[in-house]
């Protein structure tokens, strides 16, 4: 069965290591924070200028001067630091963030990603997404495998304006965990109960399937 949004986040969380500095994008990536293993510590980076983002505030602790990159009011954890956006993107562009998780409209087998614009329809601006995909060594993209009409978003070549070229290596959808290398998607894991054929059917890109593909475990 296809993963829920929370299950996608749970699977991403398994890739986290103790002591990681992590940047989580808006949407499913945000949920990842809820599934960091108990015995591990991570520091969340928010690109507007905060390292050590905490949970949402209470009515008593809410502070308009303390927001995250999604413009939500948040708190700061023990050991946090505030800094300018220039410093924040120095961290990101300089490769100091250990893991970046973000959403996408499309990804392709060359590792390119489209996530910021649908011409004529949706213009939100790229915000920090282009910097994040260019700066991080270690990126996980979370997205749905296809749109509601069954049209694949796992493509040979992105059709929408790119956020970054040749920068994505790992993608987790509601159906599969895939790695991009040598110009193709490689199927690493299946969602529990989802067959390789089902994944194949919704994947427009070249999909390499080597041997038995294990199911994800939670």
């Amino acid at each position: 069965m296809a993963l829920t949004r929370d299950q996608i986040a749970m699977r991403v969380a398994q890739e986290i290591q103790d002591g990681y500095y992590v940047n989580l994008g808006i949407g499913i990536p945000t949920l990842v924070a809820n599934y960091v293993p108990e015995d591990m510590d991570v520091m969340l980076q928010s690109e507007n200028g905060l390292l050590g983002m905490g949970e949402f505030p209470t009515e008593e602790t809410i502070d308009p001067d303390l927001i995250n990159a999604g413009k939500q009011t948040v708190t700061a954890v023990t050991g946090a630091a505030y800094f300018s956006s220039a410093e924040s993107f120095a961290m990101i562009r300089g490769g100091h963030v250990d893991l970046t998780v973000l959403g996408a409209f499309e990804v392709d087998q060359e590792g390119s990603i489209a996530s910021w614009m649908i011409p004529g329809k949706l213009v939100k601006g790229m915000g920090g997404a282009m910097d994040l995909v260019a700066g991080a060594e270690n990126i996980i993209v979370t997205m749905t495998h296809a749109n509601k009409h069954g049209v694949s978003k796992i493509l040979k070549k992105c059709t929408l304006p790119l956020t970054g070229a040749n920068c994505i290596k790992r993608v987790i959808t509601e159906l599969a965990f895939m790695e991009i290398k040598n110009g193709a998607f490689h199927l690493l894991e299946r969602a529990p109960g989802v067959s390789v054929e089902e994944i194949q059917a919704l994947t427009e890109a070249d999909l390499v399937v080597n041997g038995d593909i294990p199911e994800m475990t939670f």
Partner: protein
Amino acid sequence: MSGFNKVVTSYEEALAGFTDNMTVMVGGFGLCGIPEGLIEQVNKLGSTGLTAISNNAGVDGFGLGKWLEKRQISTMIGSYVGENELFEKLLLSGEMEVILTPQGTLAEKIRAGGAGIPAFFTATGYGTQVADGKETREIDGRNYVLEPSLTADFALVKAWKADTMGNLIFRKTAMNFNPMMATAGKITVVEVEEIVEAGELDPNYIHTPGIYVQRVIKGNFEKRIEQRTIKPSSEKE
């Protein structure tokens, strides 16, 4: 220290010399850390043909949203349109030129402008439409885009505290683009919550030294919250 007293007491004085067709940087991320009173004053002045450099353009009816309503901006350089419907409309109709710039590149272009760096290479945007028409170059096996820096006639900055000499400190994430913009304006005007005497800010923790600042004014801030997110009351620490 007469020559270093940068305090002005009216918004008219704060924006003296501000005219049509100027380039103006405005600090803030979303509605967090924006110089509310200075934005209001430019709106009052009714200056048009402005090139505005700001990460966002406020929301409908608040912050830079007011400049949009009055069609004061002819060119907007920013990274995020977000939920601002009027911005999106002006962009799609072509009524306002919009130069969408990645957030980190925008921050760095402003920092570079203030620091006398006319251009720098960054990997951000390589292979995307951001790189269209720009020089690209492979350095040590990676591809980069050459980005020119940004400066402005006026930088409108919001800080937490200033001393009379223009030394500034910012508060939490209301810092965002403000420190870089303070360095990149020919005239940098800072609206603050509190003005203190010189010597009251610890010299070891000043975020922006007064050398970058021309004018300081005390403002009154609404500090509107864009996304009021509260921990559900059922949730315990």
